[in-house]
């Protein structure tokens, strides 16, 4: 990615609400994590102060398996930002822990992406210390 692209990703991550910070700090360690409710045991994403299941304030960040499958995806042909020249893909990954995350599929032709395709996390360093959790065919 170019310098402008790095800035784009960094600025988008820095602009997220404070609850997101531990997720991206873990990504910098190349660890995929999510909050797990200490009271009802549910994983949750996106990050939030309370559990949407039981509204408990108590949670612990836990490392995830990084294994999942493609839930849906789109190959984008419109240039929304110079940071992402088309065509590129965006995807929803359904993780084995039962939560979904937005991402990109790498290591695979866009034409070969399918719903239900098994994937595993792969960290891409897009600028110094900034890692995006992307997914490649498992």
């Amino acid at each position, binding site marked *: 990615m170019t310098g402008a692209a790095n800035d784009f990703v960094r600025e*988008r991550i820095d602009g997220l609400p404070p609850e997101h910070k531990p997720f991206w700090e873990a990504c910098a360690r190349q660890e995929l994590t999510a909050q797990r409710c200490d009271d009802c045991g549910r994983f949750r994403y*996106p990050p939030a102060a309370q559990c949407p299941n039981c509204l408990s304030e108590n949670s612990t960040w836990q490392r995830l398996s990084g294994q999942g499958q493609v839930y849906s995806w789109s190959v984008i042909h419109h240039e929304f930002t110079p940071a*992402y020249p088309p065509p590129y893909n965006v995807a929803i990954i359904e993780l084995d822990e039962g939560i*979904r*995350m937005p991402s990109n599929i790498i290591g695979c032709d866009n034409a070969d992406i399918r719903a239900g395709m098994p994937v595993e996390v792969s960290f891409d360093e897009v600028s110094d210390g900034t890692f995006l959790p992307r997914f490649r065919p498992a």
Partner: protein
Amino acid sequence: MSNNISGKYCIIGTGATSWGKHPGRSTESLNIEAIRKAISDANIDKGDIDAVLCKMPTTSPGLGYSLAIAQRLGLTPKVTGVLDQEGATMVGLVEYAIMCMELGQCEVAVISYADYPRTGPNKLAPAPSEVTPFGWLGAPSSYAMIARRHMSEFGTTHEQLGAIAVAFRKHGAMNPNAQLQKAITLDDYLARPWIAEPLRADDCCVVSDGGGAIIVTSTERARSMGVEKPVKVLGLGQGHPSWDVSYRETLTTSGAAVAGRQAFGMAGLTTADIDVAQLYDCFSIVPLITFEDYGFCAKGEGGAFCEGGRIEVGGELPTNTSGGLLSETGSPGIQLIIEAVSQLRGNGGERQVANAKTALVSNQGGIMQTHATMILSTEGPF
């Protein structure tokens, strides 16, 4: 309880600006032009209006919008306010107006919306989202996720999405007020570039400046005012999946499932009673799923339902007869109510559906996160 008021309230007037470009106009002036036309269409005095309800312009959200509209109308309303259900708001405001009338707070409501996303300044700042670092930007990308999931679960095809675009563009070509008046063939559709696969340019709504307004009152009051053909509100419903596209339980069922059951239940009608439909079509996949959720066909069969001219004027269920968001205007929903009223009054011109007595309207918004349903008819109680 809710069945008691089916038909008790009605729409007596509609008005709209032209759709397309309005450089240099304020959103307030577009609202007032549409309201002035609706007052004239209803043949009432401006002073009869005692409720002013608006949806905030998407490009310039701010507090107190309906107050500014009341001032420019020279009115001091008993009831006013805005509602945010994204694209479901216009039907939501009909519900709010009727509730206030049931409470005895007002008798004649004007409901309006106007915006200038094509030529005006866009002050809408998108909320920060965890999807954007991955380059997931823009509504087409999100609706593409829904369309792709529907294709993966049910085998829905590109040609079936294309049938929807072809139908609504055909209707737009029959509407002298449509922003896009150019019919396309399925081959034209398939040759168009992708925006976000599986959505092509013709799967996405147009972007339009302009505004529309409707006037709602009780059927009894309409009769006393000598309204010739009040269009009665027989059914109303709402249901909101709410969650962001990545996280909700299913991407292939919309709020139409809940909202439709409420509206058809209140009206005491079934899908077989609908003569003409005006369904929110910000993207082609939306009416396809809406047909399924209202029960016109089984879940997964929406693609096949839309093929073979069934949803075109002259077909079994003419839909979006003015061209919808894909052709007439990308305005979020008021035009669908206006066209339903026009069809039921027999004012559809070249695109008039013969003997149209009962119409179905859907409004929906966000990324298929909100939904409202309204059934209108010239028949029924009251």
